């Protein structure tokens, strides 16, 4: 199976090192979440994947070969700041970007019409892009990026500024591309969306990789777990406080008891001790969320 491999890529702008050392692999057909705070180097990394910027060091390979112009034309790109010709009509715009990536006429228009229907843009097909709302412009942009059925689609902050309805439409489109076998790399600050969609993640900060892997792998490396217990009775609280490995967590707005325990703690034994102490209606070992892993990886946890 082919894949995208970044090996030790680095890129500076003058004295500023935007990317210091990034390595990861994206197996073909995978949906890959590239996460990091603002200024972490996500966009620069994406631009290097797409050949817009040349790395100072390291290499980018697709299916074992360096990424050249011919390869790049089989990639698609949705930049963070949308790029559309304001005076061009929606159908013409989508077809044009398709032709730029080698889709011949009349297939360009045929596919453009299919995407227009898929993204519910029918009533805007003959309107100028500059007249559309931001959400609809983003839909046009995704159609432009995907019309040539790219092998790899890179999406930089695809959900930023979208309302929930348009975000869901975009998610549907991305799920469709994923189902069709397109390799997707996307960055987003909307963790719940990205957690749902992606199979693999890479969290970067300060131009370096902090953690990378599937969510299961990231969770396996997480040192603690949270257990939630109901009801929040005094007896159960006393029993939990007596547990040497448990640390109480504040959950002000929820009627549960929450404690942090080591990942390898024997929670079954703990449950037995709690049942002996009082009535337990719920006992749950909560896996860390992607946002928890993210916050710890970038060193910003509370």
């Amino acid at each position, binding site marked *: 199976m082919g894949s995208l491999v970044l090996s030790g890529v680095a890129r500076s702008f003058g004295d500023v090192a935007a990317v210091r050392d990034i390595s990861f692999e994206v197996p073909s057909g995978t949906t890959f979440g590239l996460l990091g705070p603002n200024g972490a180097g996500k966009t620069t990394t994406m631009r290097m994947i797409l050949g817009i910027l040349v790395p100072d060091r390291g290499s980018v390979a697709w299916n074992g070969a360096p990424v050249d112009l011919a390869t790049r034309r089989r990639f698609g790109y949705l*930049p963070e700041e949308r790029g559309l010709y304001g005076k061009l009509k929606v159908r013409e715009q989508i077809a044009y970007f398709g032709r*730029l990536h080698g889709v011949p006429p009349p297939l360009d228009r045929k596919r453009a019409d299919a995407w227009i229907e898929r993204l519910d843009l029918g009533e805007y097909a003959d309107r100028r892009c500059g007249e559309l709302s931001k959400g609809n412009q983003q839909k046009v942009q995704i159609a432009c990026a995907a019309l040539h059925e790219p092998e790899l689609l890179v999406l930089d902050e695809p959900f930023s500024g979208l309302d929930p309805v348009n975000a869901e439409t975009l998610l549907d489109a991305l799920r469709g591309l994923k189902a069709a076998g397109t390799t997707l790399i996307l960055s987003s600050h909307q963790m719940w969306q990205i957690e749902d969609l992606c199979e693999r993640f890479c969290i970067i900060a300060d131009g370096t990789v902090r953690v990378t892997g599937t969510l299961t792998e990231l969770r396996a490396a997480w040192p603690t777990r949270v257990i939630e217990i109901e009801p929040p009775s005094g007896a159960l609280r006393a029993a939990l406080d007596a547990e040497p490995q448990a640390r109480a967590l504040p959950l002000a707005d929820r009627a549960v008891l929450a404690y942090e325990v080591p990942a390898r703690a024997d929670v079954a034994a703990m449950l037995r001790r709690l049942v002996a102490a009082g009535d337990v209606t719920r006992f749950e070992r909560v896996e860390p969320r992607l946002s928890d892993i993210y916050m710890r990886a970038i060193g910003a946890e509370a």
Partner: protein
Amino acid sequence: MNTVGVIFSAEFERRIRSRAFLIGTVIGALAIGALALLPGLLGGFASSTKTIVLVGDPALTSAAAKLLKRDFSIVATVPRLAQTPTVAYLDAHGKASAVAVLERRGDALHVVAYTRDPGGMRTAFATDLAPLQIGLATGTPPSEVAAHTKIAVEEHDVSGRFADASQAVAAKGIALAFIVLLYLAILLNAQSIVMAVAEEKTSRIAELLVAAIDPAQLLFAKILAATATSFVQLAVWIGTSVVVGKTVAGFFADAPAAAGAPALGVTAPEILWFIVFFIIGFIQCAVIFAAAGSLVNRSEDVGSISGPLYIPIIGAYIIAQFALQFPNAPNVVVFSFVPLLAPFVMFTRVVVGSVPAWQLVVSISINVLAAVALAWFSGRVYRVGMLMYGRLPSPRQIVAAMRQR
């Protein structure tokens, strides 16, 4: 279709359909039409401004009237004035433009003109009335003197380029018209190139384009489209000048047709040289303006970055005007080799003068090489400029970014 072709056709279509192109082409055509009509109209104005009232002794005024016919129309002849003429007096005499009072002082003729346009008649009076002055001094009838002062003057071009002076004058008219076309085409399209490139950068379309196509190819396709668009514009303008010129020739049969209808009588070599120098000049300017556009981050900055780039174009236009009169002046010859200036200056020299073949070959070679060098340099600036955001970069920052790729 390859990517260059895709960008070329899209860019060409976008430019042809743009409001700026339509407005520029229509205004240009109207301006050229007006220029073609101008000599005829001015001829009409000129004739209406040369009506005069003659005042003086009848013997003097009758002899003078015959001589002044060449340049003036005499609306009235009176022996004397009751008072100094006013505008009302002129209006009452067929809206005459002047009153000329002739007086004999000894053997000399003295003319006092009361005119609406001081300074505009002195030469014509002095020239036309010279036989009368000689006649008064020598006693020879003025008509006889006039007959003897007709001198046949022939001008021959030593290079053999022009059969007679009228051809040379016509060539200057043609050269002037082409220089104006070249100037307008470069000026209008250079501005649209800056705007288009700046729009692609500020709207971040550049990132998408650069991801799919090599920036040098992108620039090449854009310049090609801009050149093709300006050719369409030129065709419209030249067509307009031909049509209006023919109309003018019909309406103003006596007007100087060669100056009024510059496109008439244009030869194939002149068109060929125009195309050659237009392509060279246009590419030299277009690549520079495209590079400038790539450095702009806000549309408000377009003027400040492209403004200085107009200086060599305006300079070339002014030098070309000088070259029309003195095509072989040493400084004109030097300027006809200098990139950015040569397309205007050498073209003018070729049309109105006799340029040695070696000069033409050297000038074209230098300028083609300069166009390639400018395209290479601009391509590098364009490549980095399209992805540089923030404040307008300093020259040092541009060079550093170019080194960095």
